[in-house]
């Protein structure tokens, strides 16, 4: 304690073989609304005990539910696949800038659905040395209908999109180009890749 007080806790010897806030359980704070959060990491099965550092979010299997990856100090990482059985519907959006930077980093989308207006931004890097997937993700709860969306591009352009034009992309990823009225499936390449993979597999099966 004296070392702590005198600011000597930078040194390696201070720690020795002890733990120092070690073996802690990761937290998943579920937003219960009304300004309340509940840590449900244990019941949800996302409570790794390793010394976590960076954490990034992405939809790794394209099922519309966000997964997690954690880089742990002095250990192997943790990849948590999200298997929630009764998660709501969602829409993912990959924005492509033309006048704005091509990654559309800094773009904000306001999406109205199910009585809520949600705001999400495109960002490349946040948290601790971490970067989530660039496409933004909106949970829609039980609602499969989108009222409208508004994209505020870094160039200053505000683009309004009717909900009916987004509805076909519920539970999928829409590709939206700056200023363009055309919305396409962002995972076209992925679909092609999947077909190729299944063909390869079929080929292997034959030989």
């Amino acid at each position, binding site marked *: 304690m004296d070392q702590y007080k005198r600011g000597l806790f930078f040194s390696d010897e201070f720690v020795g073989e002890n733990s120092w806030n*070690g073996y802690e359980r990761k*937290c998943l704070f579920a937003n219960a609304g009304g300004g309340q959060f509940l840590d449900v990491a244990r*019941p949800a099965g996302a409570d790794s005990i390793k*010394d976590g550092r960076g954490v990034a979010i992405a939809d790794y299997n394209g099922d519309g539910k*966000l997964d997690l990856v954690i880089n742990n*100090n002095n250990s192997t990482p943790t990849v948590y696949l999200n298997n929630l059985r009764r998660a*709501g519907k969602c829409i993912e959006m990959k924005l492509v800038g033309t006048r704005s930077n091509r990654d559309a*980093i800094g773009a904000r989308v306001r999406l109205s659905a199910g009585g809520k207006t949600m705001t999400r931004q495109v960002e490349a890097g946040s948290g601790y040395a971490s*970067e989530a997937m660039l496409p933004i993700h909106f949970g829609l709860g039980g609602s499969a209908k989108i009222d409208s969306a508004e994209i505020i591009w870094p160039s200053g352009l505000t683009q309004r999109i009717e909900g009916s034009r987004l509805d076909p992309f519920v539970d999928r990823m829409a590709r939206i180009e700056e200023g363009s009225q055309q919305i396409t499936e962002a995972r076209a390449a992925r679909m092609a890749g999947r077909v190729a993979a299944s063909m390869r597999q079929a080929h292997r099966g034959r030989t």
Partner: protein
Amino acid sequence: MTRKRKRMVFIYVPLITIGVIFLAGKLYVDRVEANAQLLADTGQSAIKLLGEYKSGVENLSVDEIVACYDDNYSSEAEGFWSEELESERDGVRVYQWRLDGIKPFHKADVREQVSRYLGRVRSIEEGKFKLDSVEQIPRSGQAVIRSILWVRGVGLDGVPFESHALFRQWLHAAEGEWKIEKQALIHGETVTGDRAGFTNITEKAGITFESHQNPTWNTPEWLPKKFGIIKYGQGGVSTADYDNDGWYDIFFGDGSHPRLYRNNGDNTFTDVTVKAGLPAEMIGIAVGVFADFNNDGNKDLFLGCSTGPNRLYRGNGDGTFTDVTEGAGLGGYLVTVAAAGDYDNDGKLDVYLGRYLDPRTKLPTTLFYTRNGEGNTLLHNDGNFHFSDVTAKAGVREGGLTLGVAWGDYDNDGYQDIYVANDFGRNALFHNNGDGTFSDVSKRTGTMDYGYGMSATFGDIDNDGNLDIYVSNVHSGQRWYGQAATLYQYMLTSTRQGTILEDLPLYKEIYASVGADYSSYGDRVVKGNSLLMNDGAGHFTDVSESARANPFGWYWGSTMFDYDNDGRQDIYAVNGWISGKKKDDL
């Protein structure tokens, strides 16, 4: 004037004056130290008592727990802890603690209370009972504390559970034995579930990466003994579709062997580091940022390095990268974090680098309001993979020891602002003025968080259209010690470190920013994570405590995401500092 008189005026009087000032100063210092010592001793006693309680919980022993209570325990109105179902979804049940059968409580009632709670438990996996704060020391041997009980186990129904409860407890010492003489539940909750929401697929997915310490920290040049703990900070993680196949890949920063894993699209990943044209070994890569710096539709990769130069790789669009570091102008060493954003909306992505401190030449001064870091860097993208350091012109040289940077337009004016979380040093919000300069608006906006900032994220938590901020900090369970660490104590520490003269202006700054509260500065430093809610009118309020998004722990990365697709941003926060051979905390 006689010689005798002269000697009197010019020698004895000054000597006596100096002596008196010295004695007064010493008395004052002693008093500061004595108060701190009393708090420290009280804190230690409380921690010991809570530790005995915790052992009782882990042993499922009502007797051991009840032994922590005074025979004359008395509470005017208390009840039995009951759990009321609040919500149920996807196999997760949330119960709020309510008090049943409220009446005056005595020790026998406490026994009943504890028996009923433990009666629902089949087994305990782990318990913690942490001292949150020492609220009052009415006199030596008496204390009012706040404490947090955290229990995880399996219920009689075979379902895993976790309980968190916050108490206020009145303690007193009789013949050296500290006991609880009164207690009040502030709030408590229990969550249960089948643990099926998330599956750890790391091994099955073929990810064999294991993080390494940066070997450079252990070389004599980097004085590992002086600032040894710096080497436990590794490392970041990034996700991007680097090869444009529609699947999101993973990059792990590392001390010596950063790795790029390609997502095969079937829940498996393959290490493609070398295949993608990245070196098999790279020392001190703290962070990787994938962004399209030349707007050609391919992800490029910026690598921030701690003990060497930063690197830049151009994405070739065929799943490979080419090193374009040479002459790119990527800023200095000691980078911990980085994020890309277009601060001048010229359509080209710039980079803001968070940096730490060079342990070869210094240690953090003032311990917690540190300004002697390397200074963060803003790199302007000039095109053609060339960057210019515009930090000074932009006014964003933040000198704390940075562990988190985030871009976000908090005031919806169309320009991206920057939030900086500092480990040693207070946090800072830089407002983008739209003319290539930024203003430090931390104090005005209420975002000058004092904790040991470990990460920061922007996101709209309450769907009001304004970006809020979540900052991870340290809430170490030793908060009581932070309380002991007053501004005066910090000054004493600075004196002992021999840095008091250079630190004095900073103490003035601390005093100016926290005003009359300065004496509890230490308490603010270790109060834990902050959830800063943006009111849309340029002001943020920290609601982490009422939002219950601030349990004890040593937090690192944190992020906002909607894990259950209900339209509300949830928060994931990872923690854990050093898990040593011995499981017990320092």
